[in-house]
Structure formats: structure tokens, C-alpha cells
């Protein structure tokens, strides 16, 4: 799903991902920590106490697995604040997206930024809250039923994780 890299600093993983939304975020690399493939952003305050090994700390940004970066919803929210490429979808489409479906042209209310085919786009509801992200297929000129953004991650994932942990 995400940029494949064998060896790279944590910030490069994150920067590469964020750049695909045509924006940038500034992260103090001295506050980034990787633990079991999961990347966390600490604060100066937390850093003093996070030195003895931990399970989770500060803001979880995502995980690196087999050289790929999988973002967290915290990171997607940070990209939302930085006005990364996004689409605002109507209520029905928002719910279908949360259920794992792709975004169809007829469900889009607004496109912000200038996403190109293959770029990532944040999928926002009408409150400008980030529901996840997808791959932009640039089919705005096509038929109403055409897929405009392919679902790559949505907040319904929290429920799917719960279900997986129960099984």
C-alpha cells in the first residue's frame, strides 16, 4: 500500500507518505521513537519517561512492516490540519466509506487541492473530520457511478481490529 523502502530513517518514511497528499508536516526527529516497528511521536515531557521501554507512547504515527509504512489515524489528522489533498463526501458516502467501500463520484461534495491520478487523498465528512484516506483515480469527468477514490484505510478499522482481537 505505501512506499516500499528497505532502509530509511523514520522521518523519510513519514515524509514520503505525507508528500503523497501534496503537503508537508514538520516533525522533530529527536522526538520520534520506533518500537517493534511502530512509530511514536513523543513530547519533551514524555521523552524523560519513555526511556525504559514501553508498549505505546505519545502519538502513534504508524507502523513499518516489511519495508512499508502504514499510517495511523493520528498522522492522517495531522495531514488534515496541513490541508493535504482531500475530498469531502456526503453523509451516505461517508458511512459507506467507513464500512470499507470506495468513493464514487456522485458522493463527492468538494475536492480540495489538486490531486493527480495515483495521489493519496484524505476522505473527509461534512464536518471536515478525517474518515481515512484513499488513492485518487482522477475520474471526476467520468460517469456518476465511477470510483473516484479507492479506499485504503478508514476509521471502521477500529471495529475490525476489535473483531480480530476477539477471534
Amino acid at each position, binding site marked *: 500500500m505505501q512506499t516500499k523502502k528497505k532502509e530509511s530513517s523514520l522521518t523519510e518514511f513519514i515524509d514520503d507518505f505525507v508528500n503523497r497528499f501534496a503537503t508537508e508536516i514538520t516533525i522533530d526527529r529527536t522526538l520520534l521513537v520506533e518500537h517493534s516497528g511502530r512509530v511514536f*511521536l513523543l*513530547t519533551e*515531557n*514524555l521523552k524523560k*519517561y*519513555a526511556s*525504559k*521501554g*514501553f*508498549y*505505546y*507512547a*505519545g*502519538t*502513534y504515527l504508524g507502523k513499518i512492516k516489511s519495508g512499508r509504512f502504514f499510517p*495511523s*489515524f*493520528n498522522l492522517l*489528522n495531522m495531514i488534515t490540519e496541513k490541508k493535504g489533498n482531500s475530498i469531502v463526501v456526503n453523509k451516505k458516502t*461517508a*458511512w459507506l466509506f*467507513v464500512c470499507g467501500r470506495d468513493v464514487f463520484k456522485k458522493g463527492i461534495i468538494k475536492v480540495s487541492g489538486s490531486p493527480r491520478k495515483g495521489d493519496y487523498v484524505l476522505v473527509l*465528512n461534512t464536518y471536515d*473530520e478525517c*474518515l481515512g484516506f484513499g488513492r485518487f483515480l482522477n475520474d471526476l469527468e467520468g460517469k456518476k457511478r465511477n470510483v473516484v477514490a479507492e479506499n485504503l484505510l478508514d*476509521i*471502521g478499522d*477500529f*471495529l475490525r*481490529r*476489535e473483531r480480530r*482481537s476477539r477471534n
Partner: protein
Amino acid sequence: MSSRDFFISRYEELGWKYHNIMLEQAIRINTMNIEATDIVERLKSIGITIKKVPFLNQGYWASSPKFSVGATSEYLLGLYSIQEAAAQMPVTLFTHLEDKMVLDACAAPGGKTVQMADSMHDTGVIIALDLKKERLVALANHLERCHISNTIVHHIDARHAARLGIKFDRILLDMPCSGNFATDKNWFKQRTLKDVERNAALQREILTETLKTLAGDGEIVYSTCSLEPEEDELNIDWAIGSLNLEVQTINCYGQRGLTNVFGKRLDSSLEKCRRIWPEQTQGFFVCKLKRRKAA
């Protein structure tokens, strides 16, 4: 005598007549992420019936005949958490949480951890511990969903908290306990007095060990969702005598703690605790403790 009859007769001896209850689902607004008035309107607009819990600031009873309150976009966005009404009380009893160093000793699945972070406006530091790794997954998901950034989670037994070498201003001891029949329909079938006594002993160990990490003027909030006095008043009575702790006055929903349990006279300050028999909420017990000041 069946286990059910045994426990019910104990409750009657303690002053409460058993009757079955139907719990309403409660939610707590994460005020760091949204204004309460805004989310209440949003939930109403999607067909959720919502009613303020009179004894909680951020708590509401919420229900929908059509879908689960725990599967809305608003829930998944971290705008509210599902948290039983009585379970929302312990965190509200701390004095001033902002910028404090806080220990959540038995944290998973994290409802109260998130509630504390919300009360702290994400300032200070919360160290959250839990013994069971699979429960840490739920805790981590809860923190991510609610956008919490001031918490460090360790896979550590609360009894080993002192190994962290940190002094805490506030300690939440939401103890592993026997639970109560209001939240578990098989409770009477599964519980014995032996379980209760085993849990009470574990709670005393946790209290003893975590107390070593409490800063001089720090506060402990002790809570269980057990109705059994061994895990509640009897443990606190023991702590007053053995750990040099004193019970602080609290102002919250519930009845005064018991000062006479099965004929045993307890310290009179136990009445400052709160015992909540299942009515509007599940069964619960809560109190606030501090080190006794030298005379």
C-alpha cells in the same frame, strides 16, 4: 445454599434488597475533541436517544433501536467513549489533574485512561500499566481513536510499578475485581467467596506496592465494580490501619461506605467512601485516599 442465595443474603445483611436491574448504556463525551452540545445534537440527528446522567458532567445515557452506539462514525472519530455511568466517577474525584504525573495502575481497556487525559487536556503525563498483553491492544486502540498524546503504556504488573522509578502525584487504582451481577448475567453461577477473597488479597498487594510510588501529598483513587465488602470497605479499613492512609471526603453519587460489615465495626472514616448498589448504574465502590499527616 446456592451461590446466588449466599450472595443475595449477604447484600440483605448489608442493607440492600436484591432485585434485577436493566442497565442503560452510557457514553462519555471526549471534550478535548468536541463540545458536548455539538455532539449531543449530532447524535440526536442520527437517531440516538440521549439523556444526561444527572450526577456526571460529561456522561449521557444513549441508545438506538437500529444500531450499536459503539459503531457510529462519531464514536470511531473519538468524539465519545462507551463508559458505564458509575465507572465515570473515579476520575472526577481527583483534585486538579492538569500537568500532573499520573499512574493508571490497571489501565486496560483504557476508558478511564482516556477520561483522565481528557480532564488533563492532554497535559502532564499518564503512565498506564496492565498485566495482560491482549488487553493492551484494546488500550492502544482506545488511545489512538481518541487522539491521546500524553500517555505511556507499559506491559507491567501494577505490583511492580516501583520499578519505573517515578513518583506520582495521582494514582488511579481501578482494581481487578470480582465484578457484579448487573454487568454479568452469569455472575452468581461463576463466583465464590474464595474468588472474592483472592481478589481482595491481590488488591491489597497492588495498593501496598503502588503506594511506594505516591508523591508526598499525592492522591489515590481506589475503585472496584464489586459489591463484596472484602474488596471494598474491609480492604480500605485494612489500609487505614496497615498503610497509614486516610480516607478523604468526596462529593459524588452513591451511599456512604459501610462502617459495620457482618458485625465487624470498621473505622468511622469509611463512611466517606461511596458504595453504589445497582439501580441506575452497575454496582460500584470508590474512595479517595491520602497519606495520613503526622500529628
